[in-house]
């Protein structure tokens, strides 16, 4: 389920964020408990707790004492905003570098994107 390549708690946090972005986890929905995460993914409960806590620190989740953790009301919108801000550096810039490396003219790249825009993906 997890690779050993980055801290597992961070992978848990990313997975939950992904579920919130895709809508699989609705705002206000309860997320699994630390122990449920530990059992489901066969990880130490302290690791699961660290992953969840990092999302509480970012206000993506909030705690209700004795009940559990829930998705914050504006979590999805804030995640979308944050990912939009990073979109060009994380996605577009590496694409441009790759295009230059292998000799794809940027005009071709732009044309390709435009085709998507007018609804004719090649």
């Amino acid at each position: 389920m997890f690779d050993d390549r980055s801290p597992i708690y961070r992978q848990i946090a990313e997975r939950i964020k992904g579920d919130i972005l895709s809508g699989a986890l609705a705002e206000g929905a309860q997320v699994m408990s630390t122990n449920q995460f530990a059992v489901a993914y066969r990880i130490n409960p302290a690791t699961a707790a660290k992953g969840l806590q990092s999302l509480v620190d970012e206000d993506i989740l909030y705690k209700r004492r004795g009940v559990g953790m829930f998705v914050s009301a504006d979590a999805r919108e804030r995640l979308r905003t944050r990912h939009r801000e990073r979109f060009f550096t994380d996605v577009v810039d590496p694409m441009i570098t790759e295009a230059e490396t292998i000799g794809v003219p940027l005009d071709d790249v732009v044309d390709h994107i435009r085709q998507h825009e007018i609804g004719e993906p090649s």
Partner: protein
Amino acid sequence: MTLSITADDLVLDYGDTRALDHLNLHLEGGRIYGLLGRNGSGKTSFASLAAAFRRPTSGEITVGGTAPFEAAEIVSQICLIREGGDVFESDRVSSVLRFAAAHRPYWSEERAGQLVERFRIPTRKRVTQLSRGMRSALGVTLGLASRAPVTLFDEVHLGMDAPSRYAFYEELLNDYLAHPRTVILSTHLIEEVSSLFEEVVILDRGGLVLHESADDMRERGAAVTGPSRDVEDFTSGMRVLGRQTLGATSQVTVFGGLDAEQRRQATSAGLEIGPVPLQDLFIHLTDPERETP
């Protein structure tokens, strides 16, 4: 109640051989520890001292603040399972289980029954008639069902096949969640079990190489890949654990964690920064070519 384990300047000699060399270590109670080391690193010696199977040559080991050797009230809180199982070979499995039930103060008959069923241990056979995998499964059953506040498994699961090992990891976690206690798992099969560890302890040549949270350890390693000269420039002054060169490309494994600024520098210099699996960090940190810790 959970029990901590503390080693204070701990030394164990076997004749002329020094197995533990002034080891200092403190393990908080109630966590799952991975005790890692190569063969002969001192893992088994440490476990044996913690479980009062031996007396230290010098220094001190305490469990819950008490030196366990010949201290019955603390020994009953500790369960060490070694690969051989430490059971009477000629006994039937059923009588081994009865013996444990009679001598383990927190023994769970129900848990033992579940595990015997899950691992399909033939209870009517004698221990000598069991396969290596079944003996390991019996050891695992004795350790988990003991519910001892300090439970140590010394490479006990290595004789099991992969499905049984994964069943063991699952049962260990379930049992730990239901009955929190101090668990020490000594192993060199790190990759498949590392997600269970809260903290990792690495021993080498009888001394402590590293003790930290498994997550922090994963974050500290980085593999820097790129043109050899750029990689050398970037990693100069860092703690280098390993170096591989293939033609004009080098990969250098560094330990110590790269900050965001260093990562930016690396990326803009055309270098690739990759993570390092726990098993690789372990191999690098216990490399005999490496200078003494």
